[in-house]
Every structure is written in structure tokens, then in C-alpha cells.
């Protein structure tokens, strides 16, 4: 059952068409957006989350859902890890005792209770990304958008982040994720949206996409990406 509908969505900037006439329904619990560099993956994600406004078409949320987003580079404020996680809760007006509790709980779920009082920007890349996930998770979003969440991380941190994403999905949050990492997409996603030159040319269940891609661009993409 679709929880997000895109209707002829388009985005043109400086005369360049970045997203071109995208119409689709998102119903899966875990969606991966794949595509070659510059195809428009991140842009499509940002349109969905509302960070960008379309120049054409529209999107509908049949039932409004709370959303969160985690970016490729974790954006940490110049304060402690705990304060970073608390920030989102503070914005929602949640008062101190409950705020602290929820933030600490989120940090525990990502395995980082020990670094709560450390300056967030002094943490490693992997730790920062986990803090970013904790920050998003503490707000209990119904949809979580992730833009290449492990692209800047080393393999060990990547795996840790992946585990967390799977846990978040398991707890009922819908996931929409862009990634270059095909193995990751295969491990995490239920459904794949394949985007090429601003158009979503294929939307299929994950295994189908990887074994029997229908669109020629998808086929070419998989051939090039798979060693």
C-alpha cells in the first residue's frame, strides 16, 4: 500500500533538467535508490524529503508521516555527542529529563553510550555517523531517508552502520536509501528504484532487479558495477 506517491515530479535548475517526469508509488518498507553518478539519486531523495521544491509535478503523502534524514557526511554541532542527539528532541519541545533519557537510549542502541560527553566533532567518521543515526532515531521517525550513509566510512564502520539501519527498519521505520554499494542495497532493501539521467526507469523487488533487470540502462549499470 503506497505511503508516498510521486506524480510527474520534475526539477530543473539553471536550465538543466535534473529530475525528469518521475511518477511512482512507494509502498515497500525498505527502498534503495540506485543509479550511475549524476543520475539524480540524491536529488530525488531530497525532493521526497522536502528539502528541495519541484519545478514540476507534485508528491502526495496519503497519510502524513514523520520523517528524518541522515546525510553522507554527518553534520555534528560543536558540542557533545549527547547534546547533538538531544538537539532534535529540543526542537520538538521535549523537556530535559525525558530528553536526556531518550537521547541516552538512542546512543545505547547505536552502541555509543561511552562517548556521550565527548565533543562530537572529535569522534571518528563512523562514530559521528552513528551519532547522526541516533539523533534521527531518537525522534522516532516513520520514514528515514539516508543519502549514501556509508560512502565516507571504512569497511568496519560501514558494517556497523548497516546493522543499525537494519535495526531501525526492523523497529518499523520505513527506509529510503541511496547507495553506491550494491551488496549493501541487496542486503538491506526490499525494493529498488533505478534512476538514469533523471528518470526512474525501473522499479522492482530487489532480487528481481539484481538477477533480471529489465531496462537496458539497468543492465548496463549492473554489468559495469559488478566485478
Amino acid at each position, binding site marked *: 500500500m503506497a505511503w508516498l506517491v510521486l506524480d510527474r515530479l520534475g526539477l530543473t535548475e539553471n536550465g538543466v533538467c535534473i529530475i525528469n517526469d518521475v511518477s511512482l508509488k512507494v509502498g515497500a518498507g525498505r527502498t534503495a535508490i540506485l543509479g550511475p553518478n549524476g543520475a539524480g539519486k540524491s536529488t530525488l531523495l531530497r525532493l521526497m524529503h522536502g528539502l528541495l521544491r519541484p519545478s514540476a509535478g507534485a508528491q502526495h503523502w496519503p497519510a502524513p508521516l514523520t*520523517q528524518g534524514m541522515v546525510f553522507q557526511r554527518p553534520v555534528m554541532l*560543536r558540542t557533545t555527542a549527547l547534546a547533538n542527539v538531544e538537539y532534535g528532541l529540543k526542537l520538538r519541545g521535549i523537556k530535559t529529563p525525558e530528553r536526556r533519557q531518550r537521547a541516552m537510549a538512542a546512543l545505547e542502541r547505536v552502541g555509543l553510550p561511552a562517548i556521550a560527553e565527548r565533543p562530537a566533532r572529535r569522534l571518528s567518521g563512523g562514530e559521528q555517523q552513528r551519532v547522526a543515526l541516533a539523533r534521527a532515531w531518537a525522534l522516532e521517525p516513520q520514514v528515514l531517508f539516508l543519502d549514501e550513509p556509508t560512502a565516507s566510512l571504512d569497511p568496519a564502520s560501514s558494517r556497523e552502520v548497516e546493522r543499525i539501519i537494519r535495526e531501525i527498519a526492523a523497529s518499523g521505520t520505513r527506509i529510503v536509501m541511496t547507495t553506491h554499494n550494491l551488496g549493501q542495497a541487496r542486503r538491506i532493501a526490499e525494493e529498488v528504484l533505478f534512476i538514469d539521467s533523471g528518470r526512474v526507469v525501473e522499479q522492482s523487488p530487489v532480487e528481481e532487479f539484481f538477477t533480471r533487470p529489465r531496462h537496458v540502462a539497468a543492465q548496463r549499470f549492473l554489468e559495469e558495477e559488478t566485478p
Partner: protein
Amino acid sequence: MGEITTSLVLAGELVATGDARLASIVTLSLQVSLTATLLACLIGMPLGALLAVGRFPGRHTLIVLFNGLMGLPPVVVGLLVYLLLSRAGPLGQFGLLFTPAAMIIAQTILIVPIVAALARQVIEDAWREYREQLRSLGASRLRAAMTLLWDGRFSLTTAGLAGFGRAIAEVGAVMIVGGNIDGVTRVMTTTIALETSKGDLPLALALGLILIAVVLAVNTAAFMLRQWAEKRWG
């Protein structure tokens, strides 16, 4: 060259003997300019942040205006504030003319544009980094401005310092609104002007060297603070 050496020696003597008049002049200079800087930051930094983060008609005009007002001639500000505070002027009943309060007001007006324009630059750079994440978390532009002000507190010291430097070094505004009254509104710069016009150039130069030393000291302290902060908070 000889005059500079004489002045260096004189400056050293004045400082070493803890000359009382020098101490009161330096103290007043710091009181006036630091207060003006504090006020200018309280006014100018939120202004700068809102300019950086906001979207409203006339925003670009305001940015250009503040950038231009950075070059406000101090003597013009002094004249305007004098006309405002004079008994014949609109705010005359407060009797503020020829007091340190008048000097603080004049210097604050003088440096608000500097602080605002530089704060805007700092916050704009930070906004570029934080914008998507803050919006994603649901921060309004106002909340975002407040968050960036606190987050950028160390970079913002540059804006505050620039304001302080301008304030403590200017003579045009404080001379007119303060009147250079002995023991009441005489600061380092007006004393230098007075001693120069009395032909006592070594003393004027000595005071000038002390003024430079004070400014350097404040800048060094701020620099060290930033270094420590960078290491700690990243």
C-alpha cells in the same frame, strides 16, 4: 628614530611606575570600548545571523547596506550622536552628553555594522554546512539562526574583535560626544590627540605604543581562546 626610542622608554616608565592617570585613562578606554563591543555583539550578531539565514524582501539591500556602513567615518557618527544627545536635541533631557555613556552609545553605533556584516559572513558559511540537516530536523529559520550563533561562537570572536579594534582606536566619535574632559571622558586616543596638539610628541607616541600593546594583548587572548576551542570542540 630617536623620538621613537625616547617614546619607548617613556612608555616603559609610565607603565612600570603604575602612573595613576595613565591607569585611569586606559581603564576608561577599555570600559567604554569593551562595553560598546558587547552591546554591538548583542545587537549585531543576531542581526547578522538573521541576514544570513533569512529570506525576505530587501535582504540583499540590507547586506549591501551593512557592508557599506562598515566604513562609517567615526567623526560623522560622533556628530550625529552629539546632535541627538545635545540639550537642544531630541534626547537632551537625559543629560548623557559628555559622559562615558555617550561614548559607549557612539561607539556601539559605529561598530554594529562591522559586527553584523562579519557575523553574517561567518553564519552564512556555517549555514551552507548545516542547512539541510537543520531543516531536516525541523528547525525554523529563527531556531537555526540561534543554533548557528552558538555553534559558531568561536569564529564569531573574530567579528567581535574587529569591532573592538575599531572602537578602541577611534578618536573622532569619542572626542565630540565625550568632550575629552579630564578625569571623566578622557581616553587613550583623545589623550594622544591632546598631547600631540600640546606639542608633547614623545608622550603622545608613548601612549600610542601602550594603546597598540593593549590591542595586541586583547587579540592574543582571543587567538589563544580560539586555538583552545578548535582543539576541544573541532
